[in-house]
């Protein structure tokens, strides 16, 4: 296979040939090629279609600013829509497809839009599709949505992995062109830690695309030598294929390294890309400049590209985009393209210099440029047959990252472009073309100066090598008035000069209105080539200056970033870490079903052989517990060790009820409010010593409660003698409940735990199994005679096995969170559904626990009228009148016969279970004035399912209301 447009030279490895396909057609290229350079070498100019008009398009650039040459790269689950062919590194076997066309790139049916362009002006959709009203969602919008977008998503899981990481340095240099290289060299030679990052796979920036000399070597060779010197410095990190995407606060930069994108697939275990957070108090933006085109009629044909890109393809990649070319420029830099191409033996048929009054006024060639028409200073027109046209409208410094903190760039009339202003992210300096210094020598000088300034380097500045230092000679030209066709500004979104004119006509003259109304700059290139032209034209139309017209806001990321990269490893099962309980491995052996509770995996129930429905398992666990004894892993409850001579006084402040009076060796249920008087959390707290308490929290609030206690300790009462430490994971804790709980525990506990020795609400340090330190609390969530026993976590598994083995005569079972839930609802204990952050102690029937005799968090504001309304919600128990009736948590209470409207809404069911003991569904609920409705009948209605059940309102204590069992 030949590459007809491949010419001599370039930084490609011609000794190796890479095979690839585009739209199924095989081509070849070489290492060092991009997909775009390789396609151009093969004579392929047509690479894409535009968004709105489906105009045939080829690349206009040789970099990440590319709006046109977007392809679907790779296939299957790795399909990557909207990939810029101009930066996609060629690899053997690369597959690419064109997008946004049907049935084919050359013959795209949707190109009908181009014929109808007179109707599809900026914002036309805001003015139509309104009649008839029902047609919008049924007809018009589906039509619009079908046409939306460019590339398509695979819908399969991305098979590649992504990493994240953190880097620190003294100086981050963004961009490895002459300015960046010089900055890194200056800092590196001074011994500072430097990171030099460049989005390209080859460092050197424009030096690779130009024929300039630095000193007495070619610019590209100087770059390579400089890179080699930097690579020899251990404190310098060179990062190619690494785009800095944003400047965030306080010297944190985001950067994306494309580790494996130049390979067919990443090596096993290796990531596709890495998101680096780079911490650097000093950084230098040396991101260069982006050339901008000039708008003229039909300036969007494949083969028309930026003059600098045309020369980059020739110099760096050895590719002539066409055999016959022309150049259209308003500045000296465009002339370099003509000179370089001529030197490469390409036929340059015309150089159109607008400064001489010459302009291009039209072009021809539907699928690729065939000819241009020019008009000279005297008004004469001529046509030339060409395959490529290089256009240069001047260069825009890449101020983007410098503006990420919303600093506005300032207008520099000398180069007719915006340059970074005095404000910007603290610590970020700008050098080289990014600073508006467009010569090579200027880049070297400002790169060196910036590094010295950033790092406060003293001593004489080094001698800089000789380099090109031509002045910028430009006479701004934004669009050519002559000519009849549309003149594109934003090629991808098909925004043309006439759209800007319409925006002006309709008074969308603010630059933000211009952008939003016409979609200028909203395409995947974010207007890197087109924005300034658009606002310059608006400035002309409104009679304002360009700086008065201003720019829109620059936002991260500098170049689009794969979402997988930003997520890193946190996806799938690794989205969040797991927390496993001490009995997890035992439960796994038993075939337990687990449930996510926050990060924890808890045993939900443990099916036994023959059980086919989860209810069978749960009912069995409940009944066995209530009949004999059950064990439940409650390690997930938060445990906080609270010590100090003021520990008791501290607890009095943070709990609504009193703890300073709790005797040593006892525990008490505690209710914790937020300062706004709403219940925050609950749990039991035990006093293990004069100055030592251990608090338990709910599983969900363990972290928040600890944080809150630290706030109280450090910010509110800093002189209290209180020390806090979490011990949640240090102890494996099991609830042992049921009539035989004591008998079972007596098999493992070394001490006397008779009712007399260890009465209800006793707590203390004990030993088990012959001397292992442990803690025992006689508390009950289930309503049974119950204890919680804790041992150091490593012994938790063994203690569980030991209890089951030694207590085998009692047929102990291990129950999960479902059975736990059943028993607590039977007892009317509040939990998740009731502790909803919206309910007061009064709502829960615990109003009397809020002591007014002492100051505590939330005490005062809990007394507000809205929170003490006698008609407000109260916790109630609920059962169906017909014992076969079904209840659903979340159903609302309605009176019998009441219409299902909000005015009749009396409350809702917070938690529902099936009570195997009672033989029917039961629930807890918040009911308006519920305390006065005990015994009444009403309905629990679930309008989502149509369930409508007559219920009786009960006290929430539906099982053993006198509490005889737990004291047994």
């Amino acid at each position: 296979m030949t590459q007809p447009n491949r010419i001599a030279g370039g930084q490609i490895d011609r000794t190796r040939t890479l095979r690839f396909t585009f739209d199924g057609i095989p081509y070849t290229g070489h290492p060092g090629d991009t997909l775009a350079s390789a396609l151009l070498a093969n004579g392929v100019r047509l690479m894409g279609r535009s968004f709105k008009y489906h105009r045939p398009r080829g690349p206009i650039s040789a970099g990440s600013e590319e709006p046109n040459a977007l392809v679907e790269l790779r296939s299957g689950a790795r399909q990557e829509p909207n990939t810029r062919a101009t930066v996609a590194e060629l690899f053997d076997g690369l597959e690419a497809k064109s997008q946004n066309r049907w049935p084919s790139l050359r013959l795209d049916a949707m190109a009908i839009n181009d014929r109808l362009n007179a109707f599809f002006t900026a914002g036309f959709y805001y003015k139509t599709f309104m009649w008839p009203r029902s047609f919008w969602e049924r007809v018009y919008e589906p039509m619009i949505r079908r046409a939306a977008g460019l590339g398509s998503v695979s819908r399969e899981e991305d098979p590649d992995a992504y990493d994240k990481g953190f880097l620190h340095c003294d100086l981050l240099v963004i961009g490895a062109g002459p300015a960046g290289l010089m900055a890194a060299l200056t800092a590196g030679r001074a011994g500072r830690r430097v990171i030099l990052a460049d989005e390209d796979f080859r460092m050197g920036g424009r030096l690779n695309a130009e024929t300039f000399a630095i000193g007495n070597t070619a610019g590209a060779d100087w770059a390579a030598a400089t890179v080699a010197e930097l690579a020899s410095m251990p404190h310098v990190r060179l990062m190619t294929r690494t785009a800095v995407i944003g400047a965030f606060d306080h010297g944190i930069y985001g950067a994306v390294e494309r580790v494996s994108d130049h390979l067919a697939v990443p090596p096993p275990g290796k990531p596709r890309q890495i998101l680096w957070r780079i911490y650097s108090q000093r950084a230098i933006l040396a991101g260069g400049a982006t050339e901008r085109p000039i708008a003229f009629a039909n300036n969007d044909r494949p083969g028309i590209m930026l003059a600098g890109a045309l020369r980059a393809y020739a110099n760096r990649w050895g590719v002539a985009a066409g055999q016959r070319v022309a150049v259209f420029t308003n500045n000296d830099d465009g002339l370099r393209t003509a000179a370089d191409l001529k030197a490469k033996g390409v036929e340059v048929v015309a150089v159109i210099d607008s400064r001489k009054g010459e302009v291009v006024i039209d072009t021809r060639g539907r699928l690729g440029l065939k000819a241009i028409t020019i008009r000279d200073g005297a008004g004469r027109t001529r046509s030339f047959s060409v395959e490529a046209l290089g256009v240069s409208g001047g260069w825009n410094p890449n101020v983007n990252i410098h503006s990420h903190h919303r600093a506005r760039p300032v207008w520099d009339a000398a180069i007719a472009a915006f340059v970074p202003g005095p404000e910007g992210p603290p610590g970020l300096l700008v050098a080289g073309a990014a600073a508006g210094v467009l010569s090579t020598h200027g880049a070297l000088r400002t790169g060196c100066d910036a590094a010295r300034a950033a790092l406060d380097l003293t001593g004489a500045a080094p001698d800089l090598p000789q380099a090109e230092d031509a002045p910028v000679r430009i006479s701004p030209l934004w669009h050519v008035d002559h000519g009849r066709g549309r003149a594109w500004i934003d090629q991808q979104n098909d925004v043309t000069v006439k759209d800007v004119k319409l925006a002006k006509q309709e008074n969308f003259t603010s630059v933000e209105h211009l952008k939003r109304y016409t979609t200028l700059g909203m395409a995947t290139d974010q207007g890197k080539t087109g924005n300034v032209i658009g606002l310059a034209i608006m400035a002309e139309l409104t009679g304002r200056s360009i700086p008065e017209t201003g720019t829109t806001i620059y936002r991260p990321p500098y170049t689009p970033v794969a979402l997988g990269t930003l997520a890193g490893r946190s996806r799938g099962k690794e989205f969040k870490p797991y927390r496993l309980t001490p009995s997890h491995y035992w439960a796994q052996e038993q075939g337990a079903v687990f449930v996510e509770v926050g990060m924890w995996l808890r045993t939900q129930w443990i099916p036994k052989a023959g059980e086919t429905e989860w209810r069978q398992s749960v009912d069995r666990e409940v009944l066995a517990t209530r009949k004999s004894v059950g064990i439940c892993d409650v390690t997930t409850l938060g445990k906080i060790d609270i010590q100090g001579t003021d520990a008791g006084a501290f607890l009095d402040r943070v709990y609504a009820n009193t703890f300073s009076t709790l005797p040593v060796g006892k525990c008490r249920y505690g209710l914790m409010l937020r300062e706004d008087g709403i219940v925050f959390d609950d749990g039991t707290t035990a006093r293990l010593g004069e100055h030592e308490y251990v608090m338990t929290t709910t599983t969900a609030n363990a972290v928040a409660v600890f944080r809150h206690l630290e706030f109280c300790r450090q910010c509110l009462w800093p002189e209290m003698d209180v020390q806090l430490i979490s011990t949640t994971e240090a102890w494996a804790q099991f609830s042992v409940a049921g009539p035989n709980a004591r008998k079972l525990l007596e098999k493992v506990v070394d001490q006397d735990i008779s009712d007399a020795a260890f009465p209800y609400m006793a707590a203390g340090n004990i030993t088990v199994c012959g001397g292992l330190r442990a803690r025992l609390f006689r508390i009950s969530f289930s309503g049974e005679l119950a204890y919680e026993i804790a041992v150091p976590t490593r012994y938790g598994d063994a203690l569980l096995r030991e209890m089951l083995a030694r207590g085998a005569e009692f047929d102990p079972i291990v129950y999960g969170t479902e059975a736990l839930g059943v028993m607590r609802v039977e007892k009317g204990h509040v939990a998740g559904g009731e502790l909803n952050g919206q309910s007061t102690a009064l709502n829960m029937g615990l109003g009397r626990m809020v002591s007014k005799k002492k100051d505590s968090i939330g005490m005062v504001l809990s007394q507000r009228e809205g929170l003490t309304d006698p008609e407000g919600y109260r916790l109630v128990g609920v059962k169906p009148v017909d014992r076969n009736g079904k209840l659903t948590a979340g159903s609302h209470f309605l009176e019998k016969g009441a219409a299902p409207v909000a005015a009749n809404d009396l409350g809702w069911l917070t938690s529902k279970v099936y009570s195997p003991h009672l033989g029917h569904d039961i629930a807890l609920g918040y009911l308006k004035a519920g305390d006065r409705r005990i015994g009444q009948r009403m309905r629990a209605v679930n309008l989502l399912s149509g369930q409508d059940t007559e219920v009786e309102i009960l006290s929430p204590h539906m099982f053993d209301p006198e509490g005889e069992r737990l004291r047994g």
Partner: protein
Amino acid sequence: MIIPHPILGPRDAQEFVYLGDASLIDRPDGMTAGIEEFHDYLYQRTNPAGEHQELWYHEQGDRSWLVVTRNTVTHEILKVELARDVARARGRTK
């Protein structure tokens, strides 16, 4: 953001949990103050565009509560103190 911790030096703000205005230190005494005073304490905020004293908790660090003086427009951090020291200076005791 990076918070210059008074003990530990620069630390990534990701390690911290934010609470809000440092006036939350000035909790009234519940035995003497009434609902209105607590209302103003808990709910009303100056919310300045500019210098703001605010509470950050070093949850993934040393568990210190800090009072950070930060510009809410530029995010520049002007001062960082241990909240406990600030609380004491404001006369808070037991």
